[in-house]
């Protein structure tokens, strides 16, 4: 039996905003030339790139020359971490980071450690919120080159105390890098950071465009081979049509952000309440109040995460999971692990501008039966 598709994985990639599509098509005609050259076609491309940078910088609240477009959010995160460490290598070898950073940040940290550096992860509580005392101790220790904190968890939605963490960093003289991938285009950005990254396909832009903002005065040094483009912060030609589409859709998303927050946050509240009430033995995780407006995560006891994703997919629901059986490494999500919450039977639901109340209602109506069916199949009812 077929079911109409309901896409609920915006935290991985939001459906492309119609403005992004229009801008992309227009820029394919106009923005194919190399913006670095000195002929008419190049000047047109340069104008498009400059306008995209200006608009995006304005939305982020930074200067245009502080912003670079990268080839992905992952590349931006790698550059932010490795460049922040390289710029302050004389101060010391240590990267302080929360235990719940995105894997892109953790993989950059692994590279740093493999090269002789130090990484010091800071724990979170059961709700996924940074331990500020441990953070303060870690940041104030000698030899800290950079601190990294995600603005809000991409897996459980808990908003991090960035302002407090940034104040500690400022006091200790340590630059703060924030991964704002789940916040940009959705919620106001925190203050006090020195380096910020984001990813266009999280706000309805095309895949393959990342943002790397480095504040003036930050000691950041490109970790890549030299390249003069994008302020010397990231090598290679930018995908200009995609950058133009990313900028146009960010502007549109930012205009709608507050209304979307008002619309989506109650839908997430409804999911949190109804899943907890109507699915037996479920743990809804993350902070119930200090959270992103569009994202909710829960784990179903005794249920195999992969089986649950497939069962939901058969009913038309596209969701994500932090369960080990759904990852290529067969390890549970490091975020759920750091929080100490149930990792199997895990589902992350993330909403977007096209998500309707009816979509959420259909999900809520079908989920209890799907979970009950899987438990009956596995013979775990009543355990």
């Amino acid at each position, binding site marked *: 039996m077929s079911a109409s598709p309901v896409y609920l994985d915006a935290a991985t990639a939001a459906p492309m905003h119609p403005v992004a599509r229009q801008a992309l098509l227009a820029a394919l005609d106009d923005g194919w030339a190399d913006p670095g050259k000195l002929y008419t076609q190049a000047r047109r491309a340069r104008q498009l790139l400059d306008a995209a940078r200006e608009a995006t910088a304005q939305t982020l609240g930074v200067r245009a020359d502080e912003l670079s477009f990268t080839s992905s959010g992952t590349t931006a995160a790698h550059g932010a971490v490795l460049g922040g460490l390289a710029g302050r290598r004389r101060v010391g070898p240590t990267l302080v980071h929360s235990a719940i950073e995105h894997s892109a940040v953790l993989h950059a940290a692994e590279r740093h450690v493999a090269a002789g550096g130090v990484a010091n992860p800071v724990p979170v509580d059961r709700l996924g919120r940074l331990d500020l005392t441990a953070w303060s101790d870690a940041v104030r220790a000698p030899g800290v080159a950079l601190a990294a904190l995600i603005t809000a968890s991409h897996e459980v939605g808990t908003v991090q105390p960035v302002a407090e963490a940034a104040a500690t960093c400022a006091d200790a003289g340590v630059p703060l890098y924030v991964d704002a991938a789940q916040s940009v285009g959705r919620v106001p950005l925190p203050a006090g950071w020195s380096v910020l990254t984001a990813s266009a396909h999280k706000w309805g832009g095309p895949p393959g465009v990342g943002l790397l903002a480095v504040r003036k005065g930050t000691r950041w040094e490109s970790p890549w081979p030299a390249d003069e483009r994008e302020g010397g912060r990231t090598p290679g030609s930018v995908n200009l049509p995609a950058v133009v589409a990313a900028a146009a859709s960010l502007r549109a998303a930012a205009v709608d952000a507050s209304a979307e927050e008002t619309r989506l946050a109650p839908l997430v509240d409804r999911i949190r309440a109804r899943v907890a009430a109507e699915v037996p033995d479920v*743990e809804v995780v993350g902070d119930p109040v200090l959270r992103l407006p569009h994202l909710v995560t829960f784990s179903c006891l*005794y249920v195999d995460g992969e089986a649950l994703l497939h069962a939901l997919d058969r009913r038309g629901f596209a969701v994500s999971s932090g*369960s080990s*059986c759904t990852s290529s490494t067969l390890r*549970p999500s490091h975020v759920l692990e750091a929080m100490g919450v*149930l990792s*199997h039977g895990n589902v992350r639901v993330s909403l977007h501008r096209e998500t309707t109340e009816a979509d959420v209602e259909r999900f809520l109506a079908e989920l209890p039966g799907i979970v009950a069916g899987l438990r009956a199949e596995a013979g775990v009812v009543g*355990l």
Partner: protein
Amino acid sequence: MPDEVLDCRGQRCPLPVIAAARRMPQVPVGTVVRVLADDPAAAVDIPAWCRMRGQEFVAAITGPDGPAYDIRRAH
């Protein structure tokens, strides 16, 4: 030392948790059951199960049989 051992090596989560959930009601209150489980998710999920079910998570141990988790039946 545990009173009995549940060998769940080679099983993927949630199977070790399910095995523990089946066994615990069958042992007397106060009994410590050691669950041998080499799936890394067990390190998260066995303590989480104890918390959700009000059972006592005694300790995680790494011994000659690999990672193990001691649970005491509390009620």
